[in-house]
């Protein structure tokens, strides 16, 4: 589904991603871990098409198409979803209106008719249950005055409504209490199927107790320095990132 080959990217002349290689197949869940500042959010942003980053080398193929060649909205319509580490506030625009615009853009891209109001409300109701989100939150301005946890939950709610092929969750677990964590994990697990894939970006292994990844990768200083299965996450938790750091110094 996603093939990242030797991806290098920089921001303001500073190189952050230094040759990322990663392959993700449909049905898989990948976790990307790594210390603060290692480039996890940068990778997520570059994949989503944020234009403040310069891609200097490498290629990314998404469902057989050249991802880097597409505008951000096209990537989204093709099924790429990013749950933001810091969701953005849009005053005056309700979550419901925002989502309706998004749903219909994606449908239009697929050659489908716009969804009528009744069907849309039904869809929303169904997905609201999944992430246990309240109607009142959805009629408020998007993320405006939401608590940290509400913002994160709203991201997962949006994901549930948009049903992406590939979802990248950037530190969705941070700022969540244990109940919210369970709800978010439950949402992700329920939506998981053989046709979609999930990338979980985190620097704690906590979330991985609830969402069991097929693969765990360690991102360190702009490179994936180690890949393994879920045991790697536990090992990291136990030994800390210093262990990788030492390891890295030995190998390089």
């Amino acid at each position: 589904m996603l093939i990242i080959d030797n991806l290098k990217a920089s921001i303001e002349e500073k190189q952050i991603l230094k040759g990322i290689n990663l392959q993700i197949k449909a049905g898989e869940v990948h976790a990307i871990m790594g210390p603060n500042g290692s480039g996890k959010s940068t990778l997520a942003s570059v994949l989503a098409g944020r234009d403040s980053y310069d891609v200097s080398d490498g290629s990314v193929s998404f469902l057989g198409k050249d991802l880097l060649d597409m505008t951000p909205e096209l990537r989204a319509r093709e099924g790429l979803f990013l749950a933001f580490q810091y969701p953005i506030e849009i005053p005056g625009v309700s979550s419901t209106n925002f989502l309706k615009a998004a749903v219909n853009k994606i449908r239009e891209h697929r050659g489908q008719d716009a969804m009528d109001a009744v069907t849309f409300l039904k869809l929303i109701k169904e997905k609201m249950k999944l992430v246990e989100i309240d109607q009142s939150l959805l009629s408020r301005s998007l993320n405006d005055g939401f608590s940290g946890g509400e913002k994160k939950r709203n991201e997962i709610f949006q994901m549930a409504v948009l049903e992406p092929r590939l979802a990248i969750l950037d530190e969705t677990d941070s700022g969540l209490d244990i109940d919210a964590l369970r709800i978010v994990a439950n949402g992700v697990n329920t939506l998981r199927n053989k046709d979609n894939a999930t990338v979980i970006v985190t620097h704690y292994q906590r979330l991985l107790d609830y969402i069991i990844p097929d693969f765990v990768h360690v991102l360190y200083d702009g490179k994936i320095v180690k890949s393994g299965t879920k045991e790697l996450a536990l090992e990291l938790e136990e030994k800390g990132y210093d262990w990788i750091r030492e390891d890295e110094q030995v190998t390089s």
Partner: protein
Amino acid sequence: MSKDNLILDKLTSSEYKYGFETNIENDSAPKGLNEDIVRLISSKKDEPEWMLEWRLKAFKKWQSLTEPKWPNVKYPEIDYQNIIYYSAPKQQVSLDSLDDVDPELRRTFEKLGISLDEQKRLTGVAVDAIIDSVSVATTFKDKLAELGIIFCSFNEAVHNHPDLVRKYMGSVVPMNDNYFATLNSAVFSDGSFCYIPKGVRCPMELSTYFRINAANTGQFERTLIIAEEGSYVSYLEGCTAPSRDENQLHAAIVEIIAAKNAEIKYSTVQNWYPGNKEGVGGVYNFVTKRGLCEGNGSKISWTQVETGSAITWKYPSCILKGDNSIGEFYSVAVTNNMQQADTGSKMIHIGKNTKSRIVSKGVSAGSSQNSYRGLVQVLPRAVNARNFSQCDSLLMGDKCGAHTFPYIETRNSTAHIEHEATTSKIGEDQIFYCNQRGIDTEDAVALIVNGYCKEVLNKLPMEFAVEAQKLLALTLEGSVG
């Protein structure tokens, strides 16, 4: 220029959609203004002597006045002798039915999305269409007449309801109020007149569409609305003009009077030609709009969506004379490219327990300048007056400007006045967030701007609100992307 600004730049540079011209024969006065022209206008309208005298008095006064220079706008000197003060579509016999309207004219209004036909009955809107200063068609007159409502052109009112016109014309905006109002008083050509009798709730929206067509022509219309005790009316006004290289002057007057417990809602969607991207052409919209809450418990609400005109100079105001009367002003003013707007409201509290509310949302894009100017005045007798003002500015890009000039004058210590102001920018973050959900940049801007203006748009009658939303998107099209 940063990418962000490039984006904003593109989105705010769309074409004006209503710029077409209609080929109809006109009956025009020669260019220029003098006493003879004033007399000519009056005689074209077959006016009674008192009306001509009124005009001549205004003209004398105007000659002694100078153009105001205090608005925060810049434009070359207007040559008042280079303007045509009267132009009318030739078809001028009074129309018995809408079928008599010149088909070319009819097509014009169809292009503008305004139907003069009976089908408008379904949407419940009565329309008065004014082209180049002359009312060409008023719909539903008969149906309204059954309720005692008068809705007709100003000119008809002068002939058929002289007592009402003489009583109220100039009672809210005096003939010598300001330079442009005085000019209008001398040369106004037509406009709308509306009278709602005691206790009547007008069952449909009353609407006037103004269109400037002829070249070099000024448009000077007057609107007079009177709501008697306990009555209610919602009135809509829409405007467009062809794209022309020269500037066109529009100096209108709107006077409204609400008697005891009467309520008037006045909504405007103003989309005069704004000029091209370089600032060539466009309408100078210098308008005096004022409402008098004459009786106790009366209410006047102004709602405006201003997207057009090269220059806008306009301050719809309320004089809160009756005790417990209420004045409201809800405004969205969008400026793009080289447009300039200096707009806001005046709330004059005279009666006891009077309340006013001002919500102003400015959106500036391109190299435009957008100013809010407001006055809240509390006179000594106005015990317990209340005002709340909210003035927000939204900036797109870094070449435009937003300015706020709030004036507060209180002469009664029981007054309670609140003023809030915010300035924000459409952020790259917000646009990217929308993009990431599949929403392209143009739609993202429209969504964000509509969200920002929601409080005002919600005040518009349904049909108009939808139109206004589209207009906002259209005005800002190309300003990001």
